């Protein structure tokens, strides 16, 4: 282990982080062990696994896993590694299966992880089936369809870990369109970047950058809608919020909600489809659908790897200290009007994905940060904005700052240091 990884507390101050937090492979290895194995990690939306036998492969930190809904309807998270000689037992991204077979030596596991088949068992050491089922994560819980898992058997119940502050924001996000249930789209944008995962962690909850990093997007929208809009303002009603356990939110709703609806009208086929929607659902519901179509207008961050933004679920997937995949999966209205779901996808494509008008410019900034981190004359990055001016919220679970404050980033790094300590709880 590197010296830096031996003393992670030296890498975080009250309002900044040391550059090696993004660069040191030893720190990354320790994060995989102490963050991704100690706390709840977001896995998937339950609508990705609707039938018994449905599975998808994923990772927790860098450990390969399979999420699978067993024949008993229970979603389990199994380590995707044969207990014999370590080959993965499931090589498909998703599908439906009653069992998984390691194709190296033919060991076969039922979809609840039980080892049920070992070829030529007469030469096998005793009780192999009892001893060597796929490793099942000890904890899998979900909140309103968001499935989390943990390697840590002692992690508190999920809802207690989340707490009332961020749960209120998760609810607002999930109730974004007339409170109707949401369903995950089967397709997902996945972007690979040569940058550390925490740059996305910070950026998804950053209400300061949008007007600058995404100026070209706002310019395009201004030209198309005739309305001048900047994302952030210093209105006191536009807030950044820190909750317990590194969870946070930014809530610029009062400044950005109406423009979101205006942008919908610039989408392909918008005129025809909105008219068709109005005819289908009537005037009152039409206004409700239109308001909810572009999402809740808030960003919700659940430490360490889930962000709820726009109409999508964003999952941060660290691969190594300087490689990360970010997946953004749109949510549609379950059984909702076809025109609404069609326009939601177009709205999402406008900003997000590898060729969107917004998200790629965030990734460019992450890579520019990576180059800047090569400098050793100034080793610190600063999250000072609004420090000391935050106010406690009414619920006792919230610290409130202005939307451009670095309240969320300070909150995230408080949790980072709490988890990285040698004998941390969850």
């Amino acid at each position, binding site marked *: 282990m590197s010296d830096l990884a031996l003393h992670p507390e030296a890498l975080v101050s009250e309002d900044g982080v040391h550059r090696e937090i993004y660069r040191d492979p030893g720190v990354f290895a320790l994060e995989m062990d102490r963050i991704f194995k100690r706390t709840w990690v977001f896995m998937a939306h339950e609508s990705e696994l609707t039938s018994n036998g449905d599975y998808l492969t994923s990772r927790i930190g860098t450990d390969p896993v399979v999420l699978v809904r067993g024949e008993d309807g229970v979603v389990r998270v199994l380590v995707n590694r044969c207990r014999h000689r370590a080959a993965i037992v499931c090589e498909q991204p998703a599908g439906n299966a009653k069992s998984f077979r390691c194709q190296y030596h033919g060991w076969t596991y039922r979809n609840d992880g039980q080892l049920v088949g070992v070829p030529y068992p007469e030469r096998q050491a005793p009780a192999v089936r009892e001893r060597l089922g796929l490793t099942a994560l000890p904890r899998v819980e979900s909140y309103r369809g968001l499935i989390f898992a943990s390697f840590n058997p002692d992690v508190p119940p999920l809802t207690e870990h989340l707490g009332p502050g961020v749960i209120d924001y998760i609810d607002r996000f999930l109730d974004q369109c007339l409170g109707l249930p949401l369903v995950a789209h089967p397709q997902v944008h996945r972007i690979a970047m040569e940058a550390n995962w925490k740059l996305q962690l910070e950026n998804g909850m950053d209400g300061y950058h949008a007007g600058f990093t995404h100026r070209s997007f706002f310019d395009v929208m201004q030209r198309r809608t005739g309305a001048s809009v900047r994302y952030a303002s210093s209105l006191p009603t536009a807030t950044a919020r820190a909750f317990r356990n590194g969870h946070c939110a930014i809530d610029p709703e009062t400044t950005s909600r109406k423009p979101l609806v205006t942008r919908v009208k610039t989408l392909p086929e918008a005129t025809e489809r909105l008219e068709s929607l109005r005819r289908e659902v009537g005037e009152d519901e039409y206004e409700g659908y239109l308001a909810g179509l572009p999402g809740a207008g808030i960003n919700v961050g659940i430490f360490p790897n889930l962000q709820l933004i726009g109409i999508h679920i964003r999952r941060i997937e660290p691969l190594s200290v300087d490689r990360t995949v970010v997946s953004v999966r749109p949510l549609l209205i379950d059984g909702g009007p076809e025109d609404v779901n069609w326009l939601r996808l177009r709205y999402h494509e406008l900003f997000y994905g590898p060729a969107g008008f917004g998200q790629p410019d965030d990734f*460019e900034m992450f890579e520019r940060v990576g180059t800047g981190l090569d400098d050793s004359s100034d080793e610190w990055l600063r999250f000072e904005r609004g420090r000391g001016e935050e106010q406690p919220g009414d619920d006792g679970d919230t610290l409130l700052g202005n939307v451009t404050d670095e309240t969320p980033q300070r909150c995230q790094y408080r949790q980072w240091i709490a988890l990285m300590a040698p004998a941390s709880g969850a």
Partner: protein
Amino acid sequence: MTEVVDPAAEWSVTQRCAQFVLDEAELLDQRRLEEWAALFTEDAVYWWPMDPAQVVPGDGLNIVYDDRARLLDRVSRLGSGLAFSDEPNSATNHVLSGVRVLRLEQATPLSAGRSLGPGEHVAVARGLIGRNRQGNTDTLHARFVWILRETGESFGIVMKRVDLLNARDPLPVLTVLL
């Protein structure tokens, strides 16, 4: 689509379409983006799907799905100096191979759910696109499909479809035109 039965006439259409799409790629590689955008018709679609089996652009999640207005936005953003993921600009090098013009029965699954009108042709090619930016060069692999509409001496692009070979994998940032 007019069914071309005369082999000489068919060959002539293929040659004209091939010349057109090579000229089109040249505009991209010379970064003459506004001239490039002007090749698209008012009802055009510029489309990069994620699923090679997808027929209709709106039926799934896409990497790019532009109507003409959005395409002009895209070009304008790239020219603004503020599309930071393309600053400094990337340079591209399109290598297109074997441009074919499809007969009607082959063309239908590739016509984006449109009924082909008179004077419209469906052309297909495979391509490699080299991309250089900031000291890095990568190679994109794609199948291209065009619906081209006769305009007299040339064509208008009614649809351009780009199926990236790795469209379903994690992709790098693609602030670029293909």
